[in-house]
């Protein structure tokens, strides 16, 4: 189980698993917590970008860029 989560963390970080080998010694729940925190950091950054663009850009430009952002993966 923890091997699968470890593979998932490495995949989420776009790194070969062997470059993060020390993480493989972590327990499943620790790897889950790490993975969750990384995902939250990514989401937080995405939300901050959206908020900053919404606040800073005039309406037509904002719609164009936020539309592009909405289509991002």
């Amino acid at each position, binding site marked *: 189980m923890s091997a699968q989560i470890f593979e998932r963390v490495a995949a*989420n*970080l*776009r*790194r070969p698993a062997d*470059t*993060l*080998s*020390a*993480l493989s*010694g*972590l*327990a499943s729940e*620790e790897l889950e*917590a*790490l993975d969750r*925190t*990384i995902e*939250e*950091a*990514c989401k*937080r*950054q*995405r939300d*901050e*970008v959206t908020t*900053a*663009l919404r*606040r*800073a850009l005039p309406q037509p430009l904002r719609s164009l*860029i936020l539309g*592009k*952002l909405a289509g*991002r993966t």
Partner: protein
Amino acid sequence: MNTLAARAEAVKLHQLLGADATSLPFLARLPETQLRRLRDAVSERLFAQDQALFRRLAAVAAQLPVLLVIPLCRAFGPMLSARIVGEMPAKRAAACAVHLPADFIARICVHIDPRRARDLIGRIPVRQVVSIALKLVENGDYPTAGRFVDFLSDEAIQAVLDTVPDEADLLRIAFYVDSRNRLDHLIRMLPEARRRKAVLLVLDEQSDLLDEILSLITSVGYSLKRELGDLAAAQDVAVIARIIHRVQEQGLWGDLLPVVASLSEANLRKVANLPILRDDPQVLDSLLLAADEHELWRSILPLVEMLDDTTRNAFALAATRVGPAAIKRAAHAVLVGELWEPMLDLVRRMPFDKQCEFAGVLNGFRGVDPDLDRRIAARASAHGLSPALASVGIA
């Protein structure tokens, strides 16, 4: 593994993740190099996210007059500005940066990976670097300041050192410097009086800079280790005992033993014979365990000759509690370092069964060199260990 460097690395990783400093406590178990690799991976993941958009915004910003980019940056806020600036040509980004106030850039720095902004950092005028550093110190953002140190010129670092008046702040920044091997050079840029002042902050219990001081002393090269270590060791016994308590509490013996081994003879004698080492079996057990785990037997065994008789007995008693594999490794260090005298003196203080166990290890060395066999037998006999040697067939 440098435990304190790993702890600093964990703080930087938590900061990058925007997580509470204690939310991922298991990270503290990982070695510094692995934590650094993880931080780099997370940083690259965050920078890769929406990078195409940031590149387009940077391309637009690069076409606008600088004076228009400034209010745009302020409107975007520090995080988005950091991402856009990171995608702009360094020359252009630097031209914008000089018009931004230091407190805003200090907040941008939190979101910048200095490895990706090396050219930009090199183009920021020294006086502005100083203003930003002062702002980071004022904000208490030492991890961010530490992350940038590797990428600053000596001229910029010297200017920051000259301007930050409090050695406590410098220690806190040094704790987070990425390249521990550069610390030696940085510390030598400080006048000797300020180096002394920094280490003597060990006396200030309220500011609690023990970790920062220990991290510094354990990271620098031999001659600075000795200089700074001697300064700390020359303090009152109560101060040294406080250091030892911290080292014990946080499992830092592996980091500290090389410092102890580098002390001048007078300080070495003073530290090695402290009552806390003699009277607390757990401290000695941890010390010996660290010596074994970090392959420091050759640093530790010469200390035995500095110990008074009572402490030697305590040391020998603690050595009986380490496992046979550790004794074998210690004996090998003795063989390589010709440390027979301190080792045999310890063994003669052990119970007979432990003496025999050690004699069994020595038996494995027989036949390597007849001269060596004769010398060991003679020295062991002088220490009254002949019966133990005889028990394994060594005449």
